[in-house]
């Protein structure tokens, strides 16, 4: 697991550097993601230790959002004041997004193999 983590951190660092010096409007981690994707395509396989790290992150991605999301307490008065707008906008938006994405896939997509 450690070699995989080191590799991912190195690509994150490379992404931050490229973002800082060449692509200032794209966040470093996104550049790192693209660089790592190129690296994997060239290597043509995912190193086992890297797969372990990535699976661990995917399964508990939610945990990493907790500190930022707790920032909600800073905005409680402002959010309370606009509670209706915020709730309706977020709720309707996510439902519509799921529905539109799903419908486009259903209409344009090649039939799948089923469940």
């Amino acid at each position: 697991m450690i070699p995989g983590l080191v590799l991912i951190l190195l690509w994150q660092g490379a992404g931050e550097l490229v973002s800082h010096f060449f692509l200032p409007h794209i966040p470093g981690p996104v550049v790192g993601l693209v660089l790592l994707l190129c690296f994997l395509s060239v290597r043509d396989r995912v190193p086992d230790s890297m797969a372990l790290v990535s699976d661990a992150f995917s399964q508990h991605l939610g945990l990493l959002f907790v500190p930022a999301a707790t920032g909600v307490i800073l905005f409680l008065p402002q959010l309370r004041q606009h509670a209706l707008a915020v709730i309706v906008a977020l709720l309707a938006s996510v439902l519509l997004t799921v529905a539109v994405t799903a419908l486009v896939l259903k209409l344009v997509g090649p039939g799948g193999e089923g469940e």
Partner: protein
Amino acid sequence: MNKRLPIQEIWVYLSGSPLLALILTLAAYQIGYALYMRSQRNPLVNPVAIAVLLVAVCLEALDMPYAKYFEGAQFVHFLLGTATVSLAIPIYRGLNGLRGRVFPLLLALVAGGLTSILSAVGIAHWLGADHAIVGAMVSKSVTAPIAMGIAERLGYSPTLTAVFAVITGILGAMLASFVLDGLGLKVWWQRGFAIGVAAHGLGTSRAFSVHPEAGTYASLAMGLHGILGAVAIPLLAGYIPTF
């Protein structure tokens, strides 16, 4: 003389180190996750929502300001960037099985991405939200670390954007399966992709816990949406009236 002194000293020591915030964050998530598993992975029992509620209540009870909590919790927060980079792995795995799906997936991604921005900004503005709130809605369907970066560049609050992004993720993780069932979508990769476009990381977590193929496509969707959002939203921002 003062019996409370040693306890106070311990308290001062603990609250000065990142340990307390880290324990709080991880323990709250652990409780949320245990409840989620105990509920047979019921989408309405969202581990992140529970964890945030628990942390918020604890901060209130301990009288600990958010800035101080974040000083310690930033070590967890930092890993969001690393997790974003590691999305390359599921994307790479997904790419191998794409075959004839590239065009429909990209079309669905663009349609979904535009829907998320226009509906959120439109409805929030229509219901009278102020400029800061409407602005923070713009990038909320993109995964939080990228959404925060976009918001910062556009001059909106990254924290508020992160909050909206996470609420979006929680709502998506909770409700997407009902929408997909309602639309009669039964194919795992389509279900996964739709949830990944709409509800990024938290939707992906949810998708992985339901079916691996759904999870792979959800992370593919989240990654592509993140890349597209980071490139396109700042370019489109001039055309999105946030009023």
